[in-house]
């Protein structure tokens, strides 16, 4: 159960070109900044990025877009990043826009073994195109498919050496659900504390879900 902390560079080397990668964060808050920088530094290519948004060109996931690491984006909003919009218009990046609640539930479904999500969000809109509709007790629901990824890159507040994680305020956002939905889960905490320091009720992500921890910047 014990996790050894690795460097951001070592983690970035695991994330192969062409991988699907969930990245926590909302407009950059709660994003794993050191992992993102390490991916840019190693010149990752062809990534599919799954996350709420692409933040800003110099912040969070935006840096990956700017550095040409990204082939595809699945997000709810790209309005804060002109580069994403420009590359999408030019056909250089493929963008799937997903309602934010549906994105959260699709990730949760992928991590929870559910066959999909039955939702009224998107019914009667472009989002419903090409998707299965089911009637349940007289109402129509879209079947939205589960989302999983090769990697989930999380930002946490505290971690212990079992990988148990805490988050702070609005920096939690998509991180806790992404922890369930990837084959390899890499968490970048602000701090790593000894096992036993985080009380059981304060743990937001059980350590068993975490594959690797990122060591502190200077150690």
């Amino acid at each position, binding site marked *: 159960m014990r996790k050894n902390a690795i460097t951001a560079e070592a983690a970035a080397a695991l994330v192969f070109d062409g991988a699907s990668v969930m990245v926590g964060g*909302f*407009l*950059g*808050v*709660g994003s794993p900044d050191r992992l993102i920088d390490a991916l840019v530094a190693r010149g990752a290519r062809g990534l599919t990025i799954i996350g*709420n*948004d692409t933040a800003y060109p110099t912040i969070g996931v935006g840096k990956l877009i700017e550095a040409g690491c990204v082939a595809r984006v699945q*997000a*709810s*909003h*790209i*309005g*804060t990043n002109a580069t994403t*919009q420009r590359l*999408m218009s030019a056909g250089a990046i493929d*963008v799937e*826009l997903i*309602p*934010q*609640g*549906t*994105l*959260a*539930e699709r*990730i*949760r479904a992928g991590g929870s073994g559910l066959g999909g999500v039955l*939702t*009224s*969000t*998107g*019914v*009667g*809109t*472009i*989002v419903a195109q090409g998707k299965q509709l089911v009637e349940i007790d007289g109402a129509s629901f879209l079947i939205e498919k589960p989302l999983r990824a090769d990697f989930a890159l999380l930002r946490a*507040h505290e971690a212990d050496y079992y990988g148990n994680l805490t*988050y*702070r*305020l*609005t*920096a*939690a*956002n*998509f*991180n*806790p*659900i992404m922890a369930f939905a990837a084959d390899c889960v890499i968490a970048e905490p602000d701090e790593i504390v000894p096992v036993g320091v985080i009380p059981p009720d304060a743990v*937001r992500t059980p350590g068993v879900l975490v594959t690797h921890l990122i060591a502190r910047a200077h150690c």
Partner: protein
Amino acid sequence: MDAKEIIARRVALELRDGMLVNLGIGLPTLVARFVPRGVSVAFQSENGLIGFSAPPPEGMENSDLIDAGGGWIAALPGAASFDSATSFALIRGGHVDLAVLGGLQVDAAGRLASWMIPGKFTPGMGGAMDLVAGAKRVIVAMQHAAKSEPKIVETLTLPPTAARRVSLIVTELAVIEPTNEGLVLRERAPGVGMSDIFDNTGARLIVPENTPEMPLSSD
């Protein structure tokens, strides 16, 4: 008083004690400034917080605490933070009493378009589709016309945000309620004549015998 303030002040009068309220990015955010005296509401930020106030004093920002528009906020005593799945369980589960959203168009059926202008601008829907599908009540807060193009139209020419009919439209000229019969003119803004409204509206309006003046404060 400019158009935005008129709209925000009028929408604020729809707030009721104890409501959970979600304000969209942009104009709707202004509503928080005009909460009537004696009315206590909880604001939700879709990125994972209930109970916050406007920007903190400069120098007192916290890097883990933003609203859905990316602005710094301060958590109030009694605030609660949660992840994105929980945030949208609140929104989609009908726990949000009132959502106030901006809009590009509303049509005679009360359908809202708010998230893209094909070929021009595609920021994405963020949480808007979930809010329109799930909130108990949805108010569209928008300027009546854009560059003298009516935004209230017979049939949407832009992609709808949801199939559901919104509850109320508040502009700087009028308060309009979408009903089974069509769009009903409920109130006129102070000093605004019927012709001002008709000239700037692209859909048929049902005009009751009595169309009172829009109140802008509860005092």
